[in-house]
C-alpha cells in the first residue's frame, strides 16, 4: 500500500475531495499546514519591527491506497488541485506496510 500525501491550496480541497470520491476513494485524513516552496514570502509588521511570513497556509491530505490505485488517484488530485499558478502544491508517495481498522482489528498490507 501507499500513502499519497498531497499538499494543496485550501480552496481546492472541496474539488479534490469530489475528484477522489469520483474515483471511489472516500477515506482520507486532512490537516491544515503551512508551507513554502517556489511561492515567495510576505513581510508582516507589528507595532515595532517587521516579520517575514514565508509560510503560506495549505491543506495536507493523506490517503492510504492500494498500489494499483496510486497513479489514477494522483492524476485525479492533480487535475482537481491545479490552478496553474505558483503555489499549487506537491504530492508525495510513501510506502505503507500495513493498515489496521481500529474498530474491527482487520489488517491489510
Amino acid at each position, binding site marked *: 500500500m501507499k500513502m499519497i500525501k498531497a499538499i494543496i491550496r485550501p480552496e481546492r480541497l*472541496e474539488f479534490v475531495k469530489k475528484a477522489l470520491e469520483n474515483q471511489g476513494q472516500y477515506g482520507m485524513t486532512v490537516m491544515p499546514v503551512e508551507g513554502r516552496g517556489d511561492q515567495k514570502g*510576505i513581510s*508582516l*509588521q*507589528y507595532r515595532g519591527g*517587521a516579520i517575514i*511570513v514565508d509560510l*503560506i*497556509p495549505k491543506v495536507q491530505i493523506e490517503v492510504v491506497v492500494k498500489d494499483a490505485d496510486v497513479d489514477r488517484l494522483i492524476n485525479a488530485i492533480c487535475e482537481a488541485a491545479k490552478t496553474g499558478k505558483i503555489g499549487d502544491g506537491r504530492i508525495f508517495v510513501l510506502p505503507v506496510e500495513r493498515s489496521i481498522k481500529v474498530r474491527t482489528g482487520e489488517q491489510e498490507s
Partner: protein
Amino acid sequence: MTLDTGTTAWLLTATALVMLMTPGVGFFYGGLVRRKNFISMVALSFIVFALVSLQWVLFGYSLSFGGDIGGFIGNLDFAGLSGIGMEAGDAGYPPLLFVAFQGVFAAIAMAIVTSGFAERVKLSAFILFALLWTTLVYDPLAHWAWGGGWASVVGSLDFAGGTVVHISSGFAALAVAMVIGKRSGFGQYSMEPHNIPMTLLGAALLWFGWFGFNAGSALAANSIAVNAFMVTNISAAAGALAWLAASWYRGKPSSLGMVSGAVAGLVAITPAAGFVDVGASIAIGAIAGLICYGAMLFRLKKGLDESLDAWAVHGMGGLWGAFATGIFATVAIGGYSGLIEGNLNQFIANAVGALAALVYAFVVTLVLAYIVDRTLGLRVSEEEEYVGLDISQHGERA
C-alpha cells in the same frame, strides 16, 4: 430652559452606547469573513470611526445641521464647530452633546457599508471613499431628514435613522459590491464564516448599543425614550425568532440567522421607535426578519456578492421600517398617525422620503465608487486578495 442633568446623563450614555456599535459591526462582520481578512474587517470599522469623527467636527456636522441650502444640504456656518455653544439651549442639554450624539451615527452608517468591500478592498482607496461617501451621501441625507431639509418638510418620519443610516448604507453597500466585483472564487467554492462566536459577540454589542441609538434619539430621558427602548427590544426579539423559524423551516435554525433576524428587527424599528407601540413592534420585527431573510436568499440566487448582506438586512430592513412607520404610527405614542389610523398621507410621505434616499444613496455611491475605482483602484491585486487583506493591507495576522 436650564440644563437638565437627567437628559444630559442619558444622552452622554446613549452616545457611548452608539459608539460601541461601530466596533460591534466590525466584529459582526469580522466573524463572517475568512480568517485571513478578520483583522481587516475590524480595522475598517475602527478606521471609519476615527475618520468620520474628525470629518464630523470639521465640516460634516455643519453640512448636516447647518443653515439649510435649498432643502438639500447645510451650509458651513458650524464648520469646525464654530458657534456650537456649551450652554444648554432650549433642549435642556448642551448643543455640543447633540453634535457628539449625531457624530456616532455618521460613523456607524459608513461602517455598515464595509459589507460591500469585504475581503477585497484596497485600504487607501477605502479611506478616500469613506470620506467622500460620508460627505456626499450621509451628510445630505441627514440634512434632509433631521437638519431642516426637504424630507422633514414633506413630513417624512425617521425617528432614529432608518432611512438616514440604514437604507443609505444598505443600498450603498449594494452599489459598492456592483462596482468592486465579486470576490475571487465567489460561487466556486464555499466561503465559510470563520468565527461565528465573534459574530455573535458583535451582535450582542449591536443589540446593546441600539438602546442608545433608538432611545437616545428621543433626545431626552422621557417617556418617548422609554417607549423607544421597549419597542426596540421587542422588534429585535421578534426579528430573531422570525428568521430563526424561517431558516428552520428550510433547514436548520442557525445562530447566524437568529442574529441576522435580530439586526433586521432592530433596523426596521429604528425609524418607528418613537411613533409605534409594543404591539406594532412585534409585527414590524417579525416581518422584518422574514423580508430580510427573503432578500438575502434573493441576493444569493442572483449571485450578487454583497458579501455580508448589508443590503438585505440594513437596506431592505430599513425600507420596510420606513413603510412600517407610515403604517403603524399611532398618535398615542408620538403624536402622528399612520395608515392604520387612516392617515394615508403619512404613509406616502414616508415612502417618498425612503425611496428618494434609496435612489440618491444608490446612485451617488455608484458614481463615487466608480470614480475611486478608476483613479486609485478600489481593489487589491489578485495575489493580495489570495493571501488576505490582513497580511497584504495591514501586515498582520489574526
